[in-house]
């Protein structure tokens, strides 16, 4: 809101989150400290926690885990005060259970620059007055878990963690927790249950984690990239942060470009960059084969086609074009890829990862997979397309958590843009003859 319109917009390639990634041994505390690491922490500890919450509110930082909830507002929901709900211990939990197909921004962040996350955790914990922070990392990312654990150990050794951090009187312990590889545990309440040692399934809301999260205490659950952005905001200020990106989606973002491009990888850019620019940065389509479809933010976001090359990839832009920014996992597919096949593979993932708690997601994905597999194997019918859409309609908005909704996105968007490809799949196949003896069976109709 205080962003000045006359501030020169920085070059899209001025890295903030990734600026240390190329440095030698970028993950070590020595490198981090050389490159201004843990300076923001000193600034933060000199401030009042409420000032930090206000700073992050002013910066307009929005959650980078997919939903884009304003981070400062989330922090301000934590009840404070010596009595009532504010008297309970407060917790910070980092959602590092990165599992969305195509999404690969948090793991590189933790591999290349774990101390940015650790410093962000300390500042955030100080702001919300938490003395315990848990980083919940996907179990398969073993190397990453080692990196972050090592970074936490280094931070303890240097006095950035533990008792009386830098003489401020503030105490913080960080625990790095290895998940067991369930997509559902990326859902924040399932993550909390899993962290508590229970079966990872989403909790009924309300109560929300802000009042009753980990161990029924006030809890902030934030994504890795969100928290890794915090030290930069403390150092640079909210105006600087707002100089990047758009009014409602300020700041830098890591776009994970994968698929049929010449140079797949992590591209940090201010929010609102387009695929056209990203493709230029990534060296264009691989071997020059034209673009067919792409996801703006992982498989749970409705897919886009070549006509969406100039959609600004921020929260508003993606939504206005009928999709979601999600986790900015830009998966790019060229013309050699069959849309029904790709959708089938995604749906197989959702079926495999459905937690089973609610009927629509559990049974719906089980059904959708079978229809899609049948269609891809050339045994579909025209009615199957309507059935797919109707089953999706019965899942979308009916499931317990957003993961069921996400499972329908690839299917409905694929049929929206590529219905003919599904129809062609059916047309290629000879009609299955109806066995003659069926007519003799009493009551056997259709």
């Amino acid at each position: 809101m205080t962003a000045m319109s006359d501030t020169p917009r920085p070059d899209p390639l001025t890295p903030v989150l990734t600026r240390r990634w190329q440095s030698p041994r970028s993950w070590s505390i020595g490198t981090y400290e050389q490159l201004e690491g843990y300076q923001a922490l000193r600034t933060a500890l000199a401030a009042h926690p409420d000032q930090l919450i206000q700073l992050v509110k002013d910066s307009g930082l929005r959650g980078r885990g997919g939903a884009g909830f304003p981070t400062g507002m989330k922090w301000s929901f934590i009840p404070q005060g010596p009595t009532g709900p504010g008297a309970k211990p407060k917790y910070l939990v980092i959602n590092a259970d990165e599992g969305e197909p195509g999404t690969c921004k948090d793991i590189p962040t933790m591999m290349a620059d774990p101390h940015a996350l650790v410093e962000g955790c300390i500042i955030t914990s100080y702001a919300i007055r938490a003395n315990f922070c848990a980083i919940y990392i996907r179990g398969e990312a073993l190397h990453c878990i080692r990196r972050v654990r090592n970074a936490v150990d280094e931070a303890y050794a240097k006095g950035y963690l533990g008792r009386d951090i830098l003489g401020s009187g503030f105490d913080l312990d960080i625990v790095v927790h290895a998940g067991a590889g369930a997509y559902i545990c990326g859902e924040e309440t399932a993550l909390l249950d899993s962290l508590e040692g229970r079966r990872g399934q989403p909790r009924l809301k309300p109560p929300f984690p802000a009042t009753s999260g980990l161990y029924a205490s006030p809890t902030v659950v934030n994504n890795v990239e969100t928290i890794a952005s915090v030290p930069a905001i403390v150092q640079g200020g909210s105006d600087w942060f707002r100089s990047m990106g758009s009014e409602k989606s300020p700041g830098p973002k890591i776009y994970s470009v994968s698929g049929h491009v010449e140079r797949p990888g992590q591209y940090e850019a201010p929010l609102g960059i387009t695929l056209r620019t990203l493709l230029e940065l990534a060296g264009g389509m691989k071997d020059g084969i034209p673009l067919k479809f792409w996801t703006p933010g992982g498989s749970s976001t409705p897919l886009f086609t070549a006509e969406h090359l100039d959609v600004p990839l921020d929260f508003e832009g993606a939504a206005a074009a009928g999709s979601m920014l999600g986790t900015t996992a830009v998966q790019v597919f060229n013309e050699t890829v069959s849309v029904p096949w790709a959708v089938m593979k995604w749906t197989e993932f959702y079926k495999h990862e459905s937690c089973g708690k609610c009927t629509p997601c559990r049974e719906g994905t089980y059904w959708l997979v079978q229809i899609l597999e049948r269609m891809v194997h050339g045994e579909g019918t025209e009615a199957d397309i309507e059935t797919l859409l109707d089953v999706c309609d019965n899942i979308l908005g009916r499931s317990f958590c957003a993961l069921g909704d996400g499972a329908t996105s690839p299917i409905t968007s694929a049929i929206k843009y590529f219905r003919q490809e599904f129809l062609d799949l059916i047309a290629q196949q000879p009609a299955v003859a109806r066995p003659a003896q069926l007519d003799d069976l009493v009551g056997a109709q259709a």
Partner: protein
Amino acid sequence: MTLTQDSGAEARPVPAGHVRLTIDGLEVDAPKGELLIRTCERLGIIVPRFCDHPLLDPAGACRQCLVEVEMGGRPMPKPQASCTMTVADGMVVKTQHTSPVADKAQQGVMELLLINHPLDCPICDKGGECPLQNQAMAHGRTDSRFVETKRTFPKPLPISSQVLLDRERCVLCQRCTRFSEQIGGDPFIDLLERGAEQQIGVAQDKPFQSYFSGNTIQICPVGALTSAAYRFRSRPFDLVSTPGVCEHCSSGCSQRNDTRRGTVMRRLAGNEPAVNEEWNCDKGRFAFRYLTSRQRIIRPMVRGADGVLAEASWTEALRVAAEGLLAARAAGGVAVLPGGRLTVEDAYAYAKFARVAAQTNDVDFRARPHSAEELDFLAAHVVGRGPEVLDYTRLEAAPAVLCVAFEPEEESPIVFLRLRKAARKHGQKVFHLGQWTTPAMRRTAPERGAAESAAHDNLIRAVPGSEAAVLADLPDDVVAALTGGGVILVGERAAEVPGLYSAVSALAERTGAVVGWVPRRAGDRGALDAGAVPNLLPGGRPVTDPAARAEIEQAWGLAEGAIPARPGRSADEILAAAAMGELAGLVVGGVDPYDLADPQAALAGLREVGFLVSLELHTSAVTELADVVLPVAPDAQRAGSYLNWEGRRREFGPALDASGVLPDCRVLDTLAVEMDSDLFTQTPAAAAGEFARLGGYGGAAPPGPGVAAGEARRPAFAQAVLATWRQLVDESTLAVDEPALAGTARPAFVRMNAATAERLGVTEGRPAAVRTDRGAITLPVALADLPDGVVWLPANSAGSRVRATLGAGHGDVVGVTAADVPAGEALVGISAGSTS
């Protein structure tokens, strides 16, 4: 008047604590916090549901109950689960009746629920009473579009000897797992795997050994959980259902008897919010095969000159019995032992029979260890009291409860469920005066966050025998908790510890806590009020009060002074007198001599008494010795009522055809007529009517007992003090012929702490022998947190029939050795103790 009503309706204020909302165009006021689905129910709008259950916490898992909701004029973007959303002011709700979106959402969820369901309704136990079947008919599509492959599982999966799981039928509503976790508190079952492979399951080697497992079968909204006893036996539409009352313990559960062609096929928990809510225990649900046991006695039997019992006509049997009793009455007197399993009407008939026909106060229902102190306690604190003093609701609301000589889960499971509910819902402090931390104690501790899951110590330990002294010197926090609305629940086992009833009486006076007496058997409380005790006439009238005697004599049409002025003898004294030849005749109801403190002495009495009449359901140790055996009707074939521990009258009618069998009160009435006395108890209704007309005692209750606290015995080398009580599922007579239920009994162990095990030279998991000079019980050792020098045995479990084998009981000293040590070397004789 019409005008005021109209204008009042327009400006009708929302009652305090309520909100006003609109459902399907109907304006309704609902209490704050009410779930939408409940408000709909009150309006008569039934929203289909599976996971929702009013006594379980909301889950929102099945998504069947979706409705459209508008808040503050803004429609919510998604349909909402009405089982998890609470009402709010100004909310506008559209159910399937007025919202096409809600209707389609419900049909969609129903179709999804059915894609993996086997649709085997024609062979399913639940078919005909199945919420899935019914709601699929009402809210589902007429056909399915699912033409793919269904998920299959091997089935059925026995998750205990009693409960079988069909995972294909399961719709994963989690009612069973939530029941086990929330209500029973023993979550042996849980969800396994995920997605479409998600299933209910048990851990390896940990079957579903819950005393409440049968409830999961009843609340399962599909046929996924079935019982071994009922599976494939019957169709719901062939059953005739009769409401009933459970005969097993003093909880007083409502139940439903489902019968077909003269046989009880199954029993279900009845819905009785004030008593058992919607639950019962597995014993109440499954233990009814005694009705068809081969030991059932159908015809009267008379012992002939050859000493053999032979079937006889009712006329002959009653004549022989009456002649024998009349002769005995003249020779040395007749006493009456009714037993603790009688209805109020039968107990009243026994009480009246004793005074009118046998002309004695020698009548005692207590077929278990008992004491004179107990009678004083019952007269002072229990008799004549109804639920207005202490009932389940007040028990649940109490801030603190102390259980004395009472193991709630084993001895009155529904009381246990209430205590657990209170501890879980509002942090009721439940203290247990006992010996070791039983499963029930852990589950009546307040629930805590996982971060502070350290075991809550709500056990007040006492060496058996020292309970009264411990009670007199309770920790301050316990006394403070009891002061101000606390409740003390005392069990019948208090009679085994001298001074304990007196200590309870004193503690109640000291703290103002309300006392509840929870006997183990269903009939004890009613028999007390009906006057089947030596010191009290019906209605709690003291025998020693001339006015009370006169009142009864007048009501019964007896001559003045016909009722003896002195209290009669207790059951133990009666049997001792019989053994000494000081008693000539005995009328015995449902008494098992092995339940008494000294079974050998009891058997001696029964053997030596001149003339023995037995009224029984089954052949027993008493019928073996009886001169005349008169069969009586089981509850299923009669009407009657019990007084449960609250003092609440629990009436029931016959579930089966009752022709050819007679209730005790009718048999006694006819027997009395043969003896030239009239009881006027031809029918239970007649007996109940007369008992009700008598009313209660108008005089002041006597003071509580004042017996000094006893001391614990001191065990010598290779000895220990015995602690013992019964398990719910054990070798009890009424649980015969039910092997599936027996399979869920808790395994029997001899329990002691590690130091005691070391001192006694026994090893965990290895057999140890507990001995007296009468016999030995050999069981594997399990370690538990008992006091030093104390061992615990289940009182009547397979391989551990303590009174019968050892002749000893709670508080007695027993010898304990490793079982492979020869008996003679390790142990010098210990004589069987007596507890009173």
